[in-house]
C-alpha cells in the first residue's frame, strides 16, 4: 500500500518548482485542491469543513489519547534512531535532535495524562523503519509529521474534555511546525494547503501499520 499518498493526497497533484515563476501559483493550488478533493470528497476544498468525525464519537478521551500516544511513540522512536541512522549533519542533525526531544516530551505528557484520567497507557509498539540514507529518512519524516497533524486535527472535535483538547491543540501545533521544517528540508511547500486535511483514526492506523513490527 502506499501510505505516502494516503497521508498526503496533495502530493499527488502538486509539483513544486523551486525558484521559478513558470508554474502559476493558482495552478499549483488548484491541483492540490483537486487531489485533496479526490480523496476526501469536497469538504476540504469547500470553504467550510464537513467532517466525518461523528462516526467515531464513541471513542473516549482515553482512547483518543492512546491513539495519539501510539503515533508519538512512532515519531519518538523514529527520530531517536535517526540521530545515528539518518546520516545527517549540520542543520538537519540539530533539527532531528530537536524533533526527538519534542516527541519524547509528547510521549511523556500523553502517558501522564492517560494515567491521570484513570486509563492505561498503551504499550510501546516495536517499530521497523526502512530507509538507508538521509533522503529516505526525510521522506518518511514528512509522511509522519503530516500524518500526525491530520490525525490530531481529525480527533480534535471528538475530544470531550476541554483540558485534553487544549493539550492536544498545543501538541498538534508543534507537529505542524515540525512538518513545515521537514518539508523545507525536502524542498517541498511547507504549508501545501490553506486547510490541513484531517484523517480518521482508521486511515491513520492503516498508514502507520507498515511501520509497526
Amino acid at each position, binding site marked *: 500500500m502506499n501510505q505516502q499518498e494516503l497521508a498526503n493526497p496533495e502530493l499527488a497533484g502538486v509539483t513544486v518548482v*523551486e*525558484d521559478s*515563476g513558470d508554474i502559476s*501559483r*493558482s495552478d499549483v*493550488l488548484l491541483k492540490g485542491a483537486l487531489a485533496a478533493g479526490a480523496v476526501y470528497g469536497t469538504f*476540504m476544498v469547500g*470553504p*467550510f*469543513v*464537513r*467532517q466525518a*468525525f*461523528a462516526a467515531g464519537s464513541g471513542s473516549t478521551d482515553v482512547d483518543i489519547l492512546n491513539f495519539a500516544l501510539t503515533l508519538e511513540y512512532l515519531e519518538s522512536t523514529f527520530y531517536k534512531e535517526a540521530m545515528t541512522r539518518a546520516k545527517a549533519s549540520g542543520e538537519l542533525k540539530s*533539527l532531528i535532535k*530537536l524533533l526527538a*526531544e*519534542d*516527541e519524547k*516530551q*509528547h510521549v*511523556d*505528557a500523553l502517558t*501522564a*495524562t492517560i494515567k*491521570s484520567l484513570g486509563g492505561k497507557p498503551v504499550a510501546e509498539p516495536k517499530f521497523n523503519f526502512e530507509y538507508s540514507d538521509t533522503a529516505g529518512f526525510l521522506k518518511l519524516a514528512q509522511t509522519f509529521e503530516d500524518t500526525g497533524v491530520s490525525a*490530531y*486535527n481529525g480527533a*480534535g*472535535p471528538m475530544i470531550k474534555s*476541554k*483540558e*485534553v*483538547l*487544549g*493539550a492536544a*491543540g*498545543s*501538541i*498538534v*501545533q*508543534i*507537529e*505542524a*511546525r*515540525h*512538518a*513545515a*521544517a521537514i*518539508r*523545507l528540508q525536502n524542498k517541498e*511547500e*511547507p*504549508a501545501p*494547503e*490553506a*486547510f*490541513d*486535511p*484531517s484523517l480518521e483514526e482508521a486511515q491513520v492506523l492503516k498508514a502507520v501499520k507498515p511501520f509497526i513490527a
Partner: protein
Amino acid sequence: MPDTTEQERSEAPAQSAIARVAKDPVSRRKFMALTGGSAAMAAFLAACGSNSGTTTSTAVSSGSGEAKTETEQFGKGDVGILNYALTLEYLETAFYADVVKSGLFKGAELDLIKKFGSEEAEHVKALTAAVKSMKGTPAPEPKVEFPLKSAKSVLELAATVENLGAAAYLGQAVNITSPEVLASALAIHTVEGRHASTLNTVLGMPITPDGAFAKPADAKTVLKAVEPFIVS
C-alpha cells in the same frame, strides 16, 4: 530560552489609537476589559510535568462572577470567535499583499510570501462563509498599516504575526462549541503553525519557540499586539 516573539509582542506600543477591530457598538472600556482564559490548559500541562515554560502571556482574571467570553465584542459564542479569527486573517492577508507590493522580495521568498498570502485569503473566505452560515454578520475588514522597511524587518514582523496567529487559534479552540467550527479552526490553526515555523526557519529562529507544547494566547493579548497595525 528567551522568546523573541513574546518579547516583541510585549514591546508593541500600547498607547496607539484604539483599534476599531470590529465595527460594533462596544465601548473602548469593554475592549480593554477582555479577559484571558487559558489557565486550565496551562495548569493541565503543568500537571503533566511536561513543560517548564511559564505562561507569561496569560494573566487570568476570573474574579468577576460573570462568564463573559473573550471574543464577545465580535459576536456571541462561535460567531464571535469566527469574527475574531476573521479580523486576524484580514490583517494577515493585507499584510502579505502589502509585502508583495513593497518590492522587497523576489524569487523563492516572494513565491513563499504569495503562497502564504493566498492561504490567508482563503481563510478569510472560509471564515466569512462560516459566519454567514451561522446567521452572523461577518466582521468588517479593518484598515491596516505595517512598517515595511527592510526585507529582514518584514520577515521578522511576518514571523511575529504568524506565531501570534497560531497562538490565537490555539487559545480559542477550547472555547468553540460546534464540532464543525472546531474542525475548521483546527485545520487553519496548523496552517498558521506551518507558516510560523517556516518564517522562523528563514530567520534562523527556533521553530518551536515555546518548546514541545505550543502556548495559547488569549484574545486580549492578541488584540493588544495587533493594535499598532490597525488604523481604523
